[in-house]
């Protein structure tokens, strides 16, 4: 099956184009956009880890190393498309236009953290693994019923492929020909469990065979192949040709969450090695350099702008004020039931007493 589902690549580790199929579309402008968005994602991620260390937010789920997969796929979306991320996909949601402030608020444990900007169809992070594949199928099916050319993209990890909902999601999508891209980030681990213990199959892409839909395996650290293959899949979906399963092979450098200790289950030297070789940013930087598009001053300027943006979001997060306990009561139903209302009233009375 590995031969039937070879890992596609456009840019190799040295930043050399090994597959010229899309070269005409690999403009300086696009390349720089991809780079900037990846840099932004990485800087957001590092900032979040720091905020967690400083106790300014709670447990955080880092994604460093997976920027190409997340950014390259998210950039393919158009207004009105639906995005269903996991807890690790802030690189994707940020790229598609989520509010950095709200993402920080999410990890600060604030209810507002689940709310996307108005008009942005971004679902809050799926916490129960794989459950979101069905929602993505449902919203995409709805677009099909409405006759639009919009669709859904849904993110999930290698571990998620073991859940029943993975299977049901792909089966429903294939049966109803729903315009969904199932975007798997195979980062080699589900917390401590390596992919070899998760499944006997050597690839995730081959699981598409079970549903007679296209399955694509690609180098998830090569943002060009991620971008162009996801785009092709999304275009098929828009044309009414149904769902695609994409396996983006990647790696998380860090811990599963800031509460996890990866040295318990793997050699972190591997992360170091990968940072120097297969890193998605480094690779694109090499390409930019090879092409003569890259200048340190440009990078410095971009970094400065991103820093400003992120610092602003941190300020906004901290200016947001305390989390609002009444949020707990006011959105359980459109109109509260008596039991919720009574409990809310009792809560308000207690708060008043305290004051």
């Amino acid at each position, binding site marked *: 099956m590995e031969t039937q589902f070879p890992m596609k690549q456009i840019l190799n580790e040295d930043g050399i184009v090994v597959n010229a199929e899309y070269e005409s579309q690999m403009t300086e402008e696009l390349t720089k956009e991809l780079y900037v968005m990846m840099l932004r994602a990485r800087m957001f991620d590092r900032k979040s880890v720091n905020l967690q260390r400083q106790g300014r937010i709670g447990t955080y789920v880092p994604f460093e190393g997976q920027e190409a997969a997340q950014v390259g796929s998210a950039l393919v979306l158009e207004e009105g498309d639906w995005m269903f991320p996991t807890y690790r996909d802030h690189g994707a949601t940020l790229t598609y236009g989520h509010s950095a402030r709200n993402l920080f608020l999410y990890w600060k444990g604030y209810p507002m953290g689940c709310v996307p900007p108005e008009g942005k169809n971004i679902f809050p992070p799926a916490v129960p693994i794989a459950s979101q594949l*069905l929602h993505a199928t449902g919203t995409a099916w709805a677009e099909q019923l409405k006759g639009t050319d919009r669709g859904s993209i849904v993110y999930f990890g290698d571990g998620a492929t073991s859940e029943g909902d993975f299977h049901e999601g792909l089966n429903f999508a294939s049966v109803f020909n729903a315009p969904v891209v199932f975007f798997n980030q195979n980062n080699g681990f589900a917390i401590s469990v390596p992919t070899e213990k998760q499944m006997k199959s050597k690839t995730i892409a081959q699981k598409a065979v079970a549903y007679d839909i296209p399955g694509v395996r690609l180098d998830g650290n090569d943002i060009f192949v991620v971008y162009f293959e996801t785009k092709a899949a999304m275009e098929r979906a828009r044309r009414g040709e149904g769902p695609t399963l994409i396996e983006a092979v990647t790696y998380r450098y860090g811990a599963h969450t800031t509460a996890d200790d990866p040295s318990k289950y793997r050699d972190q030297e591997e992360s170091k090695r990968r940072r120097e070789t297969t890193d998605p940013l480094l690779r694109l930087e090499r390409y930019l350099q090879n092409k003569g598009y890259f200048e340190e001053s440009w990078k410095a300027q971009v970094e400065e702008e991103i820093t400003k943006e992120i610092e602003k979001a941190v300020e906004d997060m901290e200016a947001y004020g305390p989390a609002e306990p009444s949020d707990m009561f006011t959105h359980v139903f459109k109109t509260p039931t008596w039991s919720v209302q009574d409990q809310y009233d009792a809560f308000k009375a207690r708060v008043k007493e305290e004051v």
Partner: protein
Amino acid sequence: MSTAVKTQKLTMVQAITDAMATMMREHDDILVLGEDVGKNGGVFRATDGLEAEFGEKRVIDTPLAESGIIGTSIGLAMNGFRPIAEMQFLGFIYPAFNQIMTHASRIRSRTLGHFTVPMVIRAPFGAGVRAPEIHSDSVEALFTHMPGIKVVIPSNAYDAKGLLIASIEDPDPVLFLEPMRNYRSHKLEVPEEKYTVEIGKGARLQEGDDITLIAWGAMVDVIKKAAKEIEEEEGIKCDVLDLRTLYPMDRDLIAESVQKTGRAVIVHEAPGTGGVGNDVVSLINDTSFLYLRSPIKRVTGHDTPVPMCAIEDDYLPNADRVKQAITETVRF
């Protein structure tokens, strides 16, 4: 224009079909989906004729996967549709439990109202029709304990149509449970037009001063029978309540009745431990403690799985057990 409402005599299952058809004619965004709901019209014929009238795009035979049905319905509901998802039997809702518990019921709350899930989950339930194992489970309590979803249970054709229409119109998820035993047990005059029965309101079926009887679904007929017989046999007059909605429960109706009678017997098919009967006991304790003249009695299914159907009658509460509880309570 005449004010006379045109009615037709319908069984409960026909009234359910009628409710869906009535609403689907008016609203294109309503979909029906589930296993065998299309050509076959559902194993109980609850969706009979809907596919013929509304087409395969709106009345959809899904693959055999309950999590898939609920999970995709959530997506449809978040994106402009109002799905009515059928679980073939309530005993087969368990594979969808995760989707209902962590998503359908929570999405409004966790997104502060940004996304909502206006969907109805319909499911036949309960014992007494000689169905195979698992088919007869009565697990309403699993859902009343689930914040963010309402639980509605009609016991007759009129209520079924009105409550189902109210459920479809509800902006939040509603679990609509249909007692199989009552599907065809009697016919009632049901208005042809659209009407609603308010969610959260029970009904008093009979006035009486001596004791309050409380039930829902198929057990309503059991308490009606017990009330009739105990009045004839012992002159005890029962206040007979059909709760109709289990969450939110009609607190005022129950409190008012128990404050009048000072006694209560609650009847349900589900096991006593963890059953909704305990909630009713608490509600009475909370609202009417000083009025109580004797302990509240619960007559329930056993703390056992619903057994194979040859002995299911020995599992189910019946009028005799209810009468015994009434007598013990009144004579306490």
